[in-house]
């Protein structure tokens, strides 16, 4: 088991964002966290990638206690691709990717040939090598997200945490980003907004609602018309797509009855 989260509590001031969340991720799995806005998906991930510190509960990664681990060691174990990747100053694409090398470097180390090679390979893998010297701020949203994935690759971890990585992206980029990550053959824990994307790529799903896990299982088990109505309050029609073999969800507007 790569990641084991037990009884995770977190609150922003007065309001409880997570009320005792427990879940796990096995080696090689692609696990999705789904749920309505404000259900705590992002908060749960931030607690795991150490952007926030849990109020209560335990998080183990590869059997070690994450909360007492050095930041450097946890960064060697997992890489993060978030939804917002603003940088206030001008950086070249390759400089952003090279930041992924940080946990591998000691205090006085400069980037050597080995690091440069890794950065180059990471960019090549995402078809971005021609953009290495470009200004990161001038890229499109989809290109930026590919650079951030390249940074995660340069980090050389085999456990990825994705926080709605395809938010605000065109559908072609959404598919492209998930395809890239799927091809890396890594263990993934991802918050996903789009239920069809979750059905296409995830092995297992957890459904969060108001800071609690209300459902879990394979996409086929979780994404039923009844469950979707209970969690999101919308009517839908769920069918199995003949080509993908995965469930496909069509949402039904008011007035369309089954």
């Amino acid at each position, binding site marked *: 088991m790569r990641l084991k989260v037990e009884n995770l509590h977190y609150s922003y001031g007065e309001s409880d964002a997570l009320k005792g969340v427990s879940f796990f991720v096995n080696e090689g799995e692609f696990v999705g966290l789904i749920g309505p806005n404000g259900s705590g998906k992002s908060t749960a991930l931030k607690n795991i990638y150490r*952007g926030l510190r849990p109020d209560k509960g335990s998080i183990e990664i590869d059997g070690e206690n994450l909360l007492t681990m050095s930041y450097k060691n946890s960064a060697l174990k997992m890489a993060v691709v978030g939804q917002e990747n603003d940088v*206030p100053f001008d950086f070249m694409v390759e400089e952003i990717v090279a930041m992924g090398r940080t946990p591998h470097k000691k205090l006085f180390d400069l980037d050597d040939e080995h690091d440069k090679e890794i950065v180059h390979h990471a960019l090549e893998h995402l078809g971005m090598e021609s953009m290495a010297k470009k200004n990161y701020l001038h890229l499109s949203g989809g290109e930026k997200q590919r650079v951030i994935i390249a940074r995660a690759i340069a980090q050389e971890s085999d456990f990825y945490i994705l926080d709605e990585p395809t938010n605000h992206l065109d559908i072609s980029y959404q598919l492209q980003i998930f395809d890239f990550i799927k091809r890396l053959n890594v263990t993934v824990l991802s918050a996903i907004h789009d239920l069809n994307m979750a059905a296409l790529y995830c092995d297992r799903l957890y459904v969060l609602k108001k800071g609690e896990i209300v459902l879990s299982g394979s996409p086929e088990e979780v994404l039923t018309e009844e469950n979707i109505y209970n969690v999101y309050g919308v009517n839908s029609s769920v069918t199995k797509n003949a080509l993908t073999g995965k469930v496909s969800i069509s949402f039904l507007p008011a007035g369309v009855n089954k």
Partner: protein
Amino acid sequence: MLGIVIILIILAIITMIVATGLGPVSVSPLDTAKILLSKFPGCNGIFEQTWTKVESNIVLGLRIPRVCLGMVVGASLAVCGVTMQALVRNNLADPFILGVSNGAAAFATLGILFGTFSFLGSYSLPISAFIGSAITIVFVYMISRVRGRINITQLLLSGVAISMIMGGVTQIIKLSAPNALGLHNAEFWMSGSLAGAKWAYLKLPLIVLVICMIFLQIHYRGLNILLLGEETAGALGINVKRLQKELVLIASLMAGVTISVSGTIGFVGLMVPHFTRLLVGGDHRKVLPISALLGGILVVWVDVAARMIIAPEELPVGILTAVIGGPIFIYMLKKQTKEK
């Protein structure tokens, strides 16, 4: 990068020699260089003495300490700006704009008035200035943090407010205890000056600058990654909380110590990092040393202008940096709002 650094070092040396000669009494750069070189061990007497005793006294006693102080103060202010900008993730941060300079000045004058830190001897002034800048930075930082992010409007406005409060405190002290200010008058704290520089003023700011530069240069990756945001920085192996505390300490040290010897010289920490980034991009490995060199060169030249423009009277150098830096600040503010 190495090329730019070498060019800037050469420029800095030329600047120091030429600037030393410039002033109400001018000494030619050649004579200046000879006067300086003749003071090096083993060089005494190898040059024919083409200069007068007065010129030699002006160069060695007045100008060279002043130019050296200008270099150190400029470099410190620029690097302090870089540090604060990494801390708040915005290029509009500067010790003057965020009220840190005025905070340092207010505490320094308070320290002089009440003798709070007098047991620290000659270091009581810089230490009280350091405490003032640290308190101001922490205060402004806390006010402008909204939901874990720095809100730039809050940041600038709280900077203005704190700056005014601290300026008011300095004024009250000036008016209520006119003789208590010792070395410096209130004018000095409000507008900054390098006049009256002595070798003795140079030691502490130089030591602080060197130590802070070494620390920052070692942690350049951390500074870069901090720009990505606090949450992402943790995921890339940086202990964000610790680094932020260290940066607050570094910025306060540099601002406080600098201000205790030169008063408030504004906008250097804003202008210099901005132009440095236009030159070499945002990577702190390059931004730090180049900002330091550019900052030193800039302040030395502005100081030359300050003593030349209305000679034999002198303008406070802080007034000139404000006149140049203010419009640049407005330009950067406009540009930033447009990009949003």
